[in-house]
């Protein structure tokens, strides 16, 4: 999976993640891994919930399980945003 991520989606993903995790925005970079950011499985669920609300998407369990860093997360979100039926 390597979806080309729009700057807007990447920015919103990073902002949502930082807000959910109460992290300073500059800590959350596209290359940061969840491990580096101290994100455990429960945090992961909270982040997915926030992203589902932010982008009005449904993130399936299976694809979410494989994500390890911010860029992969943004790529996954972008894919779901692209698949959304146009409003």
């Amino acid at each position, binding site marked *: 999976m390597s979806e080309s991520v729009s700057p807007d989606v990447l920015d919103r993903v990073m902002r949502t993640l930082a807000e959910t995790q109460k992290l300073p925005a500059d800590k959350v970079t596209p290359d940061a891994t969840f491990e580096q950011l101290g994100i455990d499985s*429960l945090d992961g669920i909270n982040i997915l919930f926030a992203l589902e609300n932010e982008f009005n998407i449904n993130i399936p*369990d299976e694809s979410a399980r494989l994500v390890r860093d911010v860029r992969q997360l943004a790529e996954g979100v972008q894919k779901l945003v692209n698949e959304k039926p146009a409003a």
Partner: protein
Amino acid sequence: MTRRVVITGLGAISALGNSAEAFWSACQAGESGIGQITGFDMSGIRFQNGAQAKQFNPADHFDDKQLIPLDRFATMAIVAAREALAQSHLELTLEEKTRAAIVTGSCYGGKTSEDAGFSSLYKDNQPRVHPMTIPRLMANAGASALALELGWQGPAWTVSTACSSANHAIGQAFWLVRNGMADVALTGGSEAPFTYGSLKAWEALRVVSPDTCRPFSKGRGGMVLGEGAGMLVLETLEHAQARGAQILAEIAGFGMGADAHHITQPSAAGAARAIRLALADAQCSPEQIGVINAHGTGTAANDVTESAAIRDVFAANLGSLKVVATKAIHGHALGASGALEAVATICGLQQQCVIPTANFQTPDPDCDIPLSLQHTPWPHEAAVSNSFAFGGLNAVLVFRRFEA
């Protein structure tokens, strides 16, 4: 002198039917009660399967008036208790009823009534809810209704510790009888978690399998919700023998503790500690245990940590024990799970056999335990039944084969 406590009656409501016999028969066959969830529009939910007690209709067991203050979870507790009491042939005098205890477990209480009542307020703008909403939703509704039906006036309460509720309840009832505060007890758990709100909440936690429950199997996808009730009649050995009751097994030990580790991630050390406490309470060595009824939820996390805990405690006799995981059969019935697993454990002790772990596909190197995969004779003196709840609350029971 310590009083010995025995089991003289079993009752079960589950996805496998409305009796302990139907339940045990499915356990022996490795038949899973998991199937498409009905009763809701499931189109907006990522998982579709559950172990609903589809054969259980409260109206078959209660008249309309009786049902007014009873949620589904309470009716299940009562019907399972009636079965257990019928098997035990227990008849108590008024005096004896003051020393008869009822300890039940439930994670949710009357969620079905709560969900229906509150959604009518929020969604349909109804101005009021049913006046029996509180009596129906209180987690102790099953225990209270049983006390009323039976006229038992001894200690009665309900334990709510998520997935460990029934084991905590059974353990406390056991200690109550062993320590002389009651002579008989009715104990177990019941749960009716199938409401739309509850299903959405489990979906959000991302631990539910998209297909079925495959404990300890490689490629397992998570837990599957179940519903039902399990009930046990406990009494002192002396009491049971004095009235010539048929003794099914002995309840020998109980251990509990908290992981103090993480709200949803289990800890192998915490699980192992609870198992060791239960063995110590039963004055039983690990080598005396021949069967473990695992918590075995089928989630990635539980099954790995539980395997580590089993390997730690039973390192010396892994070759001579079997692990069974019955949630593949009855689903994860939350506060009722430990009670259904106790029924399976006691029946296994009685018949000196182990049962298949349903839905198993491929061994997982991270779950390196001697999993039972078929119904086969298995002589064993004692068995352990594990429950490890979200929130890190562990409760482990030890049952022993009864020999007169």
